[in-house]
């Protein structure tokens, strides 16, 4: 199958610290792919490189048949209409209500008036069961509610791909499973989802395929069942969460 999103030999370092060291990964259209790995291995960096929020030192990144890693900021705006991102900390703007947060995106990308954008934003919030909280400020809501509102904001532009950066981190188990359900519902509508996660129930309950990132490259790329059956000791140590094993974990 042709790749819809692809990282080709991507390198990225921060100062003297190399993070990605030739990462190769291809994602097909409509699939839910989870990127897993230890903290600091470069999972979030990889998805930010796709959106131009960070720039790769070397290698190529492709989306829907076009190279996107060298696009100027103006061109990236077009890419960001098709590829949305839900950030780890929800990143709603504190000074705006939920409706205003979603409306900002619609005003800027679709050039809607404020009134029309707010009406449209309420519809988007309804899709994630947050319409009743449209006029509330982020600080007045729980983490799970903020996360759902952030997802509504990302979906407001009708993206083809949604990148989730640890969407269930810090949430209670019930809220976390509701977010998982939302990811699955998105996949049913044909949206491609790339999810960075540490959360085993999410990973094995939702993913079509899983990529294990280790030492700056994709160590394993497999379905959940294949990954569970893997004989690679590094894969086994990570998915079983064992402290002892061959994995190098800097800082420990």
């Amino acid at each position: 199958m042709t790749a819809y999103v692809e990282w080709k030999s991507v390198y990225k370092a921060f100062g003297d610290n190399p993070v990605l060291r030739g990462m190769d990964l291809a994602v097909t259209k409509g699939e839910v792919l989870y990127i897993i790995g230890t903290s600091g291995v470069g999972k979030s960096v990889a998805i930010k490189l796709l959106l131009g929020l960070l720039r790769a030192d070397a290698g190529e990144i492709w989306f829907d048949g076009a190279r996107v890693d060298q696009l100027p900021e103006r061109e990236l705006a077009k890419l960001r209409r098709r590829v949305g991102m839900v950030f780890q900390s929800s990143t709603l703007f504190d000074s705006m209500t939920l409706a205003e947060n979603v409306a900002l995106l619609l005003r800027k990308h679709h050039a809607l008036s404020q009134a029309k954008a707010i009406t449209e934003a309420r519809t988007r919030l309804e899709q994630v069961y947050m319409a009743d909280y449209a006029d509330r400020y982020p600080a007045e809501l729980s983490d799970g509610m903020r996360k759902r509102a952030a997802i509504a904001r990302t979906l407001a532009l009708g993206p083809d791909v949604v990148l989730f950066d640890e969407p269930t981190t810090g949430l209670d188990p019930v809220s976390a499973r509701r977010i998982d359900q939302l990811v699955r519902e998105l996949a049913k509508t044909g949206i491609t989802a790339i999810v960075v996660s540490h959360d085993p129930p999410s990973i094995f309950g939702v993913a079509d395929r899983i990529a294990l990132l280790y030492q700056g490259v994709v160590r394993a790329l497999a379905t959940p069942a294949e990954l569970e059956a893997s004989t690679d000791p590094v894969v086994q140590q990570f998915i079983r969460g064992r402290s002892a094993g061959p994995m190098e974990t800097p800082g420990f």
Partner: protein
Amino acid sequence: MIARLGSAMIDYAKAARDLWLVYVSTIAGIVRARRSRSPRGEVARQMFSIGNRSLVFIIVTLGFIGMVMTYEACLQLSHVTGDFSQLGMQFIRLIVSDFGPTLCAMMLATRVGAGIAAEIGSMKVTEQVDALRMSGVLPIDYLIVPRFIASLVMTLALSVVGATVMYLAGGLTAKFSFGVNPNLFFDLELLRLRHVGMFVVKALAYGATIPVVAGFCGLRARGSSEGVGWATTAAVIGSSFAVIVLDFVISAAALFIFGGDL
């Protein structure tokens, strides 16, 4: 050793280039804001935050500085000549051409500069700046342009208030500590239009510099709260340093233009 020194110099040069780019982008952002008729609510909010919330701080600090300066000047004069006839005239000339806007800006560099850097730095480390970019909003347009416009207006306004308070506080100190006649002190004979021109130019230059330097430091924040702390410290140092350098440059330019008449 030499390599490390060279590397540090390259880092400073890159930072200077990036700061310049932020300045240019801010000016371009003002043009974009005018064209797109962006809402002015954010500018008004920033004017309140920078101006109204600094008012008491500026009045108190500049009032005390005015008192100390006049007291010291009177003390020295009483030891040497005992003639206070030139005191008020020279004091107002000094306040208008230099100390009023400069001391006000130094105070704003600490209060406003730190606030801007901390707010933008927090947004940077919590990925809100990335979220802005994802929303199709240029961070400089949203975060720095409103603060730039607000600071330009409010630094000038606060400088006028601060200079007035400084002058009045000085006059009262001279009257009650050394018995200087207020009619003698509050004499504007030596004040010229060029001094007022320097006042305006300096206040606008400082007002334009503090939010850009502080915003630039905020946007460079990395990591977590430690990065925000670093950005805040850098903003205070950077904007205070910029105020002093600008003071020297504008004063030197004025001296070059007006010569001995200054």
